[in-house]
């Protein structure tokens, strides 16, 4: 099992609840706008504390309200690609990529820069990037942190077809060759059907 998630959490008047067991590979989180997809990713990453529940990823218990387990965000080693890019505005692209970098990841820095087409952006400040450029840097930053699993919130939404294709191929490689568990939010059915081993409706 890559993901074992059973959580509920109150947000304002809304209640986000989700319960699924996902096999190895990539699991797509699918659902209408406002259903709670980003909230689930936040809970798996450790940024949002569920009111109740249990989260296991790759065999490791990250959260268990009954057992009083709550691994801190820093030690979960999620590779989180946020819905908004969240680049650090006071660091150049190069420093953003390096921020979480831990050696011996599934991909070398050169590879990541190459396949995301970031070479000409390394010395730029985030505020000068286009929407898609920022999104690509965010993907690179997450991949370089040598994560134990990936959380991707519509990572390809603002990318063109060619770039999208290339990134999807890389995601497939990470899924198959490296065996990274991936939780993936997307509204694009084609994307989901191609990548996902399991689809969770929320």
């Amino acid at each position, binding site marked *: 099992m890559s993901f074992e998630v059973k959580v509920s959490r109150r947000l304002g008047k809304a209640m986000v609840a989700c319960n699924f067991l996902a096999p190895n590979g990539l699991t797509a989180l699918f659902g209408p706008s406002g259903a709670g997809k980003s909230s689930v990713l936040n809970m798996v990453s*450790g940024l949002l504390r569920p009111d109740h529940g249990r989260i296991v990823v790759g065999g490791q218990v990250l959260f268990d309200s009954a057992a009083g387990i709550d691994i801190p965000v*820093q030690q979960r080693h999620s590779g989180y690609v*946020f819905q908004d890019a969240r680049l*650090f*505005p*006071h660091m150049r692209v190069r420093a953003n990529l390096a921020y*979480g970098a831990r050696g011996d990841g599934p991909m070398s820095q050169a590879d990541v820069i190459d396949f995301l087409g970031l070479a000409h952006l390394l010395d730029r400040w985030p*505020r000068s990037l286009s929407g898609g450029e920022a999104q690509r840097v965010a993907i690179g930053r997450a991949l370089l942190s040598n994560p134990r699993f990936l959380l991707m919130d519509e990572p390809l939404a603002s990318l063109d077809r060619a770039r999208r294709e290339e990134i999807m191929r890389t995601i497939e490689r990470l899924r198959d060759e490296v065996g990274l568990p991936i939780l993936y939010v997307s509204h694009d059915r084609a994307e989901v059907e191609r990548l996902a081993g399991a689809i969770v409706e929320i």
Partner: protein
Amino acid sequence: MTPEELEIVRLSLRVGAVAVAACLPVAFALAWALARGRFPGKVMLDALIHLPLVLPPVVTGWLLLLAFGPQGPIGAWVEQALGLTFMFRWTGAALAAAVMALPLMVRAMRLSIEAVDQRLEAAAMTLGASRWRVFRTITVPLALPGVIAGTVLGFARSLGEFGATITFVSNIPGETQTLPLAIYSALQVPGGEDAVTRLAATSVALSLIALVVSEMLARRMGRSSHVL
């Protein structure tokens, strides 16, 4: 300027620089606690920091004298433990300047810390950064405008500090006589207007330099500002 005046300027700069440097980490820590913390007595802490602003400086100086004087509870302890005397010493002038500058520095920094987008800190945490690293590499740099503004305000306030200093550590040439105290002395002498003007102009020039430097710094750091 006469050699005595040069000496006064040097002393003022030393007092101001030491006061601000010593205050910086304390002020930032306090600003951080006030911006982010939820603890009992927070308003009290806030009020305590504002005290030197609200009380007439002479009272602040008097309280410093009571606390840090040779027979004061803190003064005696500091003297024994650290071998640091404040009474009639430039260190006392720096202490007075620091206390007076503190509220200004804390407020500016707090304002900037409150404006830091906590989602960026969250992002850094998912990348494995410890709380301390997040603080050092995200919070502090993003709050830099407030640090710079606070430093400028604090330094300017230190340069202008008079009442607390003269009440606490007296007006001793070469030791505690900073620019404002020298100006006061010159004002006591009829016809001292020339000296007053010269010394005041020096104060103004020093603060102008500090301002220009801070603006340059701020501009170099200004990359994080938003554009279109």
